[in-house]
């Protein structure tokens, strides 16, 4: 019998990014519609596209959806925006939520536009939509009308507060989900009087969390609905996902403890309320002392993690400043107290004063203690690890050339998800989609173009 491969080698071969296009797709031949804008709905449909569904993104003609006009500091754009507007570009805000899709532009307000949508809905497995609740219903292209055409359609409405209840008319964005759902209130440094030496305000998660992660939750429900339809019921259904509702799901222990004991969870900065040592400390020296970029000039930060008693003993052995605390805080229950945490982390930061985060990282690895430097997106992008694993990759995009793109968040050994292209200009696939799904010919398409329907 041949020598069994090492596990590492086995995994490298099983999940080899170079072999992705040699393998089948999980949802070959499935069709998804994305009548969405901003991030929440688009990202949901995007996850379907990554799994192999032919995903048709329908936007309003010419200018496209608002996210195309959103980019940091209004600097980076990818050109062109559309055939009609070659001198305008699409902002990078659009980038993460529209991979692999086909781009159709349709004016829903016109009867010809409604007809196009109906013809596509008849052939569709799953649709994501995030206009204001009831808008599509009013325009005649909502779930109730579509289900008559195609009872197997799964229709996911995603939005802020949902279409019913006291807040149904309220507009919402990701940041409002984070705020109203309680995510802000537990993130950041605490207010004064909470026993933490640093003071701060409730903080935003840097990413559009409620949107992108909300899309994931919608996607999971959609995949489960497909499973149920294909294996059990044979029918589609309507799913409603509220972004502010989703955000409350993150609160972990906060709701049970408030409900039973009336205690309102506060913030605890970069340390952990349930484990110690398991906190982020400041290292006194910058890793890039000669850099002119303010993002790189600042000191380094690193997570030091030694939560169990054995880990802590090992850490105290290694770090000179912690030696006096080894006996005092030998037990996890003693270490977790606010005063103990302050003492321990202060001692650690004092010790790290003359070190960079890389120094501390190496020291911790050498002493068998878990640690992880706080990396900027640049430092992360330079890690061979993530590129090897295809969690970050350069796309050779047909429109935009080489673009650095996020990869896939999960790996499947047999049917890996994949990225083909980043996105395309507004209406780039009008002809392909109208021929394939609507049975229109060239004259008809030109007529629609002339009448500004597409």
């Amino acid at each position: 019998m041949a020598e069994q491969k090492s596990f590492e080698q086995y995994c490298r071969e099983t999940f080899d990014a170079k072999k992705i296009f040699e393998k089948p797709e999980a949802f070959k031949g499935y069709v998804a519609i994305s009548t969405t804008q901003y991030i929440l709905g688009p990202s949901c449909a995007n996850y379907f596209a990554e799994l192999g569904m032919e995903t048709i993104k329908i936007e309003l003609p010419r200018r496209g959806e608002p996210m195309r006009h959103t980019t940091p500091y209004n600097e980076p754009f990818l050109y062109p925006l559309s055939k009609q507007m070659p001198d305008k570009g699409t902002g990078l805000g659009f980038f993460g939520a529209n991979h692999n899709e086909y781009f159709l532009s349709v004016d829903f307000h016109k009867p010809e536009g409604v007809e196009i949508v109906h013809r596509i809905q008849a052939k569709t497995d799953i649709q994501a939509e995030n206009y204001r609740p009831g808008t599509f219903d009013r325009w005649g292209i909502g779930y109730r009308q579509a289900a008559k055409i195609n009872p197997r359609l799964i229709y996911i409405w995603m939005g802020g507060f949902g279409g019913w209840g006291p807040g149904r008319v309220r507009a919402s964005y990701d940041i409002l989900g984070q705020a109203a759902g309680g995510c802000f209130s537990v993130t950041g440094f605490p207010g004064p009087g909470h026993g933490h030496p640093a003071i701060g305000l409730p903080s935003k998660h840097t990413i559009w969390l409620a949107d992108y992660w909300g899309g994931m939750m919608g996607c999971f429900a959609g995949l489960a609905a497909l499973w149920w339809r294909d294996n059990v019921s044979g029918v589609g259904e309507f799913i409603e996902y509220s972004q502010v509702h989703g955000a409350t799901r993150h609160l972990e222990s906060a709701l049970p403890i408030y409900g039973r004991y009336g205690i309102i969870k506060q913030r605890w900065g970069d340390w952990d309320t349930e484990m110690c040592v398991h906190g982020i400390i400041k290292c006194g020296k910058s890793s890039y002392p000669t850099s002119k970029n303010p993002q790189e000039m600042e000191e380094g930060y690193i997570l030091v993690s030694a939560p169990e008693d054995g880990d802590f003993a090992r850490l105290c052995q290694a770090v000179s400043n912690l030696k006096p605390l080894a006996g005092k805080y030998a037990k996890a229950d003693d270490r977790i107290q606010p005063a103990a945490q302050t003492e321990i982390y202060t001692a650690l930061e004092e010790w790290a004063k003359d070190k960079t985060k890389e120094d501390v990282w190496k020291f911790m690895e050498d002493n068998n203690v878990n640690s992880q430097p706080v990396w900027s997106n640049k430092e992360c992008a330079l890690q061979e690890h993530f590129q090897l694993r295809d969690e970050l990759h350069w796309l050779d995009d047909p429109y935009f050339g080489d673009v650095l793109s996020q990869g896939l968040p999960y790996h499947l050994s047999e049917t890996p998800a994949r990225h083909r292209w980043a996105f395309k200009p507004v209406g780039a696939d009008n002809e392909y989609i109208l021929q394939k799904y609507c049975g229109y010919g060239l004259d008809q398409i030109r007529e629609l173009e002339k009448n500004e329907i597409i």
Partner: protein
Amino acid sequence: MAEIKSSDIPVLPWPAVPVPTPDEVYKGLSEQAREYPNWLEANVHFRDVGKKPEKLNRIRVLDCSIKMNIGHWCSSLFAEHGAEVIMVEPPGGDPTRKHTPFGRKDLMFKDSATGEAVGGKFLHECRNKLSITMNLDTAEGRELLKKLAVDADVVIENYPPGQFDAWGIGYRQLSQINPRLVYCWVGQRGQWGPLKDRPWMYDPVAQNACGFTHGTGAPVAFGGRPTRSGFWVCDHVGGTSAAMGIMAALNYRERISGRGQFVEATAAAGIMRIIDYNWGWQGMDGSVRPRFGNWDLAINIYAVNPCKDGQIMVGGGHDRLWFRIWKTVGKDRPELEEHIIEDPALKVVVDRLPFYAQVETYTTLSEWFKDNSRLEAETKLQAEEVASGGVSFTDEVAEFPHFKYRGHVGVIDDVLYGKVLHAPAPQLAQKAPPRLKWIGRPTGYDNEEVYRRIFGFKKDDLDRLKKQGII
């Protein structure tokens, strides 16, 4: 002044303020305007879930993950959608059960059957699951897992990379026993590659590794430093993406291949997938995304700022909303509206994005906020249909009328744990919705039931295994 103990403060039963009635909610609306919300309520309201089927009740998931949240989060999604999720815990239970803020044992939850205390975080992700114990350190315990895997659809584990493989219960071995098995490893950075996980790494390892911590919090100039999330956000996102991968594999198995596959999802990759435009920007011109506090690099106005009684969010990226926001401000403080509207540097949407423009915008806006409470500002802005809302704390989240009315927070009257406030599954579905059936189980509560049902064990077998420390 005498110290106030939390036990001295009476805790009102939830909800402290009654849930609004439909008549109050839809007061003054025409029949036509009520039609669509009524249809939605009739189709997706949580009160009807008990009448409807579940989507995944043919799926059995073994959740072998311990010590961190990512695996539990992933299996929660399956449990909410009806799968039978069996948590396979070491004897004595998953150590995460004992996690409670600042070691506060008085804030834990006891069940009526065993009296075992469990922390709120674990209990919240224990929903609809069964708990059995199995000592995987022993050969006999591992044999039990192999037997259990014969009839399982999904295995989720997060042991150190290669540990299960070395134990003979990894994907390579279990897929021989059960080719239909979908096997998922979850962790922080990965089970292979130059930065593969060291044993027992927890979130925020992933938060730091993917650029999340670096980008969260206020800039240095505002006295900020890199900030981790207040919860295990990478575990939540990584767990959700793992569930997506598993669900795709199950779909493919059922329709096409008849075989399972090996799935891997990490907390770092989960956030890397969704961390906005960071990579495109970095790849384009080498930019390092800066921290920007509670403002946004790409949209102005789109921020959370302090107001009279806390912090308030207001957002409006384009002209229509920009002018509505300033119109609202102008009703109280015309000079502030004038100051902004007449500033030539802020005339065009895209000119409002540079740092100095945002400072000017929000300084002016905060002048108005400082005289308005969250509710006042929110009400005034909503009158102009601007997205706005206060930063809510847990008590406000729990009592928010909209959430109560729609069941976004709810109380379950659990057979073992009594009344527990929780956040239910956020996906509302028309025909086969997710739901909460029970909030959790004490360690090994279902040993007898599961070992009898699946293994056909008798009382003697169970007693022997228990005595030998195998279950």
